[in-house]
């Protein structure tokens, strides 16, 4: 399955309309295992809509989605999660009143029999397993018994990511992962992205922070007004070229004069 030549995700000619508005117009892209793809574009370019199609929030009007080479129908977010497509949102993912390991196991709690009859939560097991996955990803959190509300933004994000990795995510979609984080925290999250990539996870990053995207991405896909206007290898391009694609080359030239 982890064939380097087979994309973990491929979308083909995706079209999504909202009434008369074409939010995404025949966009195709691929993500290979271990590859970090930056999805760039101005507000309203269609990034979020495209991502929501992949994560099951919206359903495309035209086009196909392939996961590990097989065509899939993703009707709701649970379908996506079951396939191994996880979307990390800034606030949506965690229950702040529960501790770290409870969040990692949320909805899939490990149970054990008490007195041979009643199923109760197996806290020790969940604590142990969570510790393992955090260590594996090099994430440091003082105590896994701490509630999420006591953690920093970056730590929260790490917990959300560890959860998806623990449950075998093959593709991570990160929506503005570094927004609202301090500089040190941003660096940690970007390190984590590199670690995940080395573990063979495919990653799509949406971000307005070009600098961050350039640091971790292998390839960039640029959307403008719902259409794909460019696909660049990071090593072969520079921020100027990318910006001109994002806003439209004419505009840059005009403002340059």
């Amino acid at each position, binding site marked *: 399955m982890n064939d380097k030549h087979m994309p973990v995700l491929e979308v083909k000619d995706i079209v999504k309309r909202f009434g008369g508005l074409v939010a995404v117009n025949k966009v195709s892209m691929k993500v290979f295992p271990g590859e970090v793809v930056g999805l760039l574009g101005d507000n309203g370019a269609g990034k979020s809509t495209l991502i929501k199609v992949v994560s099951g929030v919206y359903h495309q009007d035209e086009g196909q989605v392939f996961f590990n080479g097989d065509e899939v129908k993703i009707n709701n977010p649970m379908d996506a999660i079951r396939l191994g497509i996880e979307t990390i949102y800034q606030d*949506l993912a965690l229950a702040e009143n529960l501790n770290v390991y409870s969040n990692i196991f949320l*909805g899939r709690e490990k149970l054990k029999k008490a007195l041979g009859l009643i199923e109760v*939560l197996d806290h020790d097991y969940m604590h142990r397993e969570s510790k393992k996955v955090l260590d594996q990803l090099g994430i440091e959190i003082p105590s896994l018994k701490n509630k999420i509300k*006591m953690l920093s933004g970056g730590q929260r994000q790490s917990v959300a990511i560890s959860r998806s990795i623990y449950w075998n995510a093959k593709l991570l979609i990160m929506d503005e992962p570094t927004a609202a984080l301090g500089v040190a925290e941003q660096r940690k999250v970007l390190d984590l992205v590199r670690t995940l990539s080395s573990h063979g996870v495919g990653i799509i990053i949406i971000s307005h922070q070009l600098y961050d995207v350039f640091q971790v991405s292998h390839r960039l896909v640029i959307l403008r007004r719902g259409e794909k206007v460019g696909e660049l290898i990071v090593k072969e391009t520079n921020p100027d070229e990318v910006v001109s694609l994002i806003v439209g080359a004419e505009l840059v030239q005009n403002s340059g004069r």
Partner: protein
Amino acid sequence: MSVENIRKLSGTKREWVVLLGRSWIYLFLLGEIIIFSFLGTGFFSAKNFQNIMVNSMTIMLLAAGQTFVIITGGIDLSVGFVMGFASVVSAKMMVSFYALGFPPGLAILSGVLITMLIGFLPGLLNGFLVTKMKVPPFIATFGMYGIAYGFSEIISYNVPITNLPPGVGDFGNGYLLYYLPGKFLTWFRQPAGLARAEIRELVSIVPNIFIISLLIILVFWFILNRTQFGQHTFAIGGNIDAARRSGINVDRHLMKVYVISSFFASLGGIMYVLRFVNGRADAGSVRMLDSVVAVVIGGASLYGGTGGMIGTLIGTFIIGVLETGMVNLGIPTFNKYIYVGVILILAVLIDQFFPELIRKGE
């Protein structure tokens, strides 16, 4: 004192403030008991404490269900009148079955069991409205408050249902143990053929309905704290979207939570009939406020995500001790509401001033 001031305090002092913030309800309860013991007559006695237990039972049952609802971020305003509804329905059933020629014991048991089944209905409807129809819990259960009350009045023709089969009050007013010093010890039943003087000396230990309620509450404490169901209850209150996204069937869970609440309220109504040997539509009318107050004093936030059975139990006793103590002192009980109101606001204020410190870690 603000959180900033507390942060500035040195180690030990700060620990004390935090300890106080966390355990003020225990101290408050203790304070109440001490004050009433000094002011009242015969307040500090085993008999009176059993009295408090019995009197607190209704609040405890309603509040136990309410705890689940409030932890999910909802509220159940219908519990008081669902309790009245259950008391009217069960009393009516007992009367009808007895009139049909059932032996009293069977008539009572049938009334109790059928009412327990009917008791699920208001909760199902509340849950349906909240989850499928997206009606805010406040409105859905407030509607149910009126509906349950109206139906109870219709069923009871606006008067308490009386003339229940003989023996209804035996269980509700009975005790686990009867003990006459030096003579005998019996379970559940008062020994027959006692002389007047002996009855006066008879010691009754632990009211039946207290045991039943405590058992049920223990079971639900366990469910809330040790099981997946409890964990999901907290998760929904903490972040409903996260709960949904992690595959929890939130709608079904909320449905169950509202059913639990209405089950407890119905149980309260049945207990009322077993104790007072009548059924009335307003049996629990004032208890809705008490139940919410008990849960909030117990550390639950109305925004959901926090709360617990032990806290609710203490909150219940704070109200129960207050009520009994005021009766003991001869103060009209409606004064209670002033204090209950003050305590509620105090609880919320403490919650706001100490949040980070109190809720640190586990």
